[in-house]
């Protein structure tokens, strides 16, 4: 996994609530067997018409907005567990998603792919949308180390939460799997103890 420490970037606003993973990447594009190439179909049905031509009113087709940060309304990433949602966002070039609320499975999938979910207060989210509306070139400074997100050129800054373990993993680019594989002996011991309790019954 790629390391993440901090980022300074403009942002793309998507002020909708309950953006579900079927919007992020529709099911018909889940037939690939690799992790690459999902970015071209990110937000496919909001971004393109049925004939494949771009929808001018969708934010990813508006050259005014760009950047490595996506700012979205509450309950971002709800719905299906498809990790393809995180893959399509990173493949497109996003490094950070900001919302006032993330769906659980999406949040986990993002963290496992070096995509930082930054949960801010509804008030700060509103300020971010307002700042982008006022000046699409406004930059945001996200520091994972300090767990802060700031609006550049202002004194507006907010702290965000992240599990300490996840933070270390993101900063160092560690995967959970390396850690779990290192526990093999303890996992086997757990299995032996449990089987000794009563064979065939799994509680």
């Amino acid at each position, binding site marked *: 996994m790629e390391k993440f420490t901090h980022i300074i970037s403009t942002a793309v606003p998507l*002020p*909708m*609530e*309950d953006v*579900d993973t*079927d*919007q992020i990447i*529709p*099911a*018909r594009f*889940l*037939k*690939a*067997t*690799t*992790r690459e190439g999902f970015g071209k179909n990110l937000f496919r*049905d909001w971004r393109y018409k*049925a004939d494949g031509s771009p929808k001018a009113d969708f934010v990813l087709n508006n050259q005014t907005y760009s950047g490595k940060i996506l700012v979205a*309304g*509450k*309950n971002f990433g*709800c*719905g*299906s*567990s*498809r*990790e*393809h949602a*995180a893959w399509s966002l990173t493949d497109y070039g996003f490094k950070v998603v900001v919302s006032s*609320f*993330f*769906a*659980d*499975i999406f949040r*986990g*999938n993002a963290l*496992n*792919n070096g995509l930082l979910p930054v949960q801010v207060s509804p008030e700060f989210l509103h300020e971010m949308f307002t700042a982008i509306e006022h000046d699409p070139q406004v930059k945001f400074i996200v520091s994972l180390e300090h767990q802060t997100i700031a609006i550049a050129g202002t004194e507006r800054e907010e702290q965000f939460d992240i*599990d*300490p*373990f996840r933070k270390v993993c993101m900063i160092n680019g560690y*995967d*959970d*799997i390396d*850690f*779990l*594989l290192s*526990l*093999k002996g*303890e*996992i086997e011991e*757990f*299995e032996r103890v449990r089987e000794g309790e*009563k064979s*065939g*019954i*799994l*509680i």
Partner: protein
Amino acid sequence: MSKTLFDKIWNAHVVKSVEGGMDVLYIDRHFIHEVTSPQAFDGLRQRNIPVFRTEKTVATADHNVPTINQHLPINDPLGRFQVEKLTENCAEFGVDLYGLGHRWQGIVHVIGPELGITQPGMTIVCGDSHTSTHGAFGTIAFGIGTSQVEQVLASQCLLLKRPKRMRITVDGELAEGVVSKDIILYIISKLSAAGGTGYFVEYAGGAIRSLSMEARMTICNMSIEMGARGGLIAPDETTFEYVRGREFAPQGTDFEAAVAKWRTLFSDPDAMFDKEYHYRAEDIAPMITYGTNPGMGVPVDEAIPTAPMPGDSLASFEKSLGYMGFAAGENLLGKPIHHVFIGSCTNSRIEDLRLAAKFVQGKQKAAHVTAMIVPGSKQVEQQAKAEGLDQIFIAAGFEFREPGCSACLGMNEDKVPAGEYCVSTSNRNFEGRQGPGARTILASPLTAVAAAVAGEIVDVRAVMN
């Protein structure tokens, strides 16, 4: 100290706790399917490691498969490749696969319970958010991403933060025409599509206890639609009788010993929950959804709200209604519909098919409606045929298909055309879920079959015999 059912099961599966409040949780059963597993197997290959516990891993092909002519090669080359990849991966890594052509093939959350693989007290995961279905047996069951699929294949464990606990109690008796799907759509309409995020839900109360296992599965299945990672119901005699004698269930004295342990699986009377909700079954009517997330539901005879739910923006509410072609304050009774889909991991089991067949027997679907029954598994399909249900459906003008996820998510050919309305027994009414531009109205099998006959949204209570 008093414990919730959730904590009893969780605690019994903690291999170790890690600094910072995470637990390494042992997983008893891992279901895999063709869509979310290929990248995980690639990861194992890159690390040159095996599947750690093949005997705890079971695979099936369901998301991509066609529901007609399953004996022929899959037409869609990408879908075919993905299904073939699953077959190759299972052969290479030694995982049991009940794929196309197998007598146990079916939707992963239908076959686990019907084969007795799902048993009380287990931890169960799958790369699919509706894994919460298995919670109906008193299990901790939840959906995971592909990186986690790889972790479980590699170590039979996951690194997790313990969620908060919520209890939803439904007491009283359901009215005629109201079924378990209506209970869960009602709950989600009250709590919203995000109301359960961060929680694991226990469903309790007399109205839940009185449900069959299949009806309980429908409720637990949709826990994720309010954001909860999973939902579970304490096992009882109904659960034990369902599991007894199934293919992979403990047999003979082992079964009796298992039941003795399963009887300890309940929340202690004074166990504390982080959040509690209470509802009355008598307050629940047949439900339908009007918007583009499952929280946007109303009793079938009530009008669409005139304003968004608290915390939702007017822009999102209007976008949603605009997509559906509905107006705020509109009553949907009498609204013409084009398609009816009875299937998916929510409502494709034999009881769902019996309920629909009983209503439709001797009736005809409306001429302008396409109606499709997709059984959840080969075993459900065979049972339906043995009972003659397929003939009842065919006589009424319905299509009776072969098992798979089908039009729930439109990964195969079973799609709803843009702009058309589908009354669906599935679990998600997201934009484009059933095909680009498709408009989904979620409902119970009973409300769906009544809509197929009437050709419009009807209150099933008014048209039952």
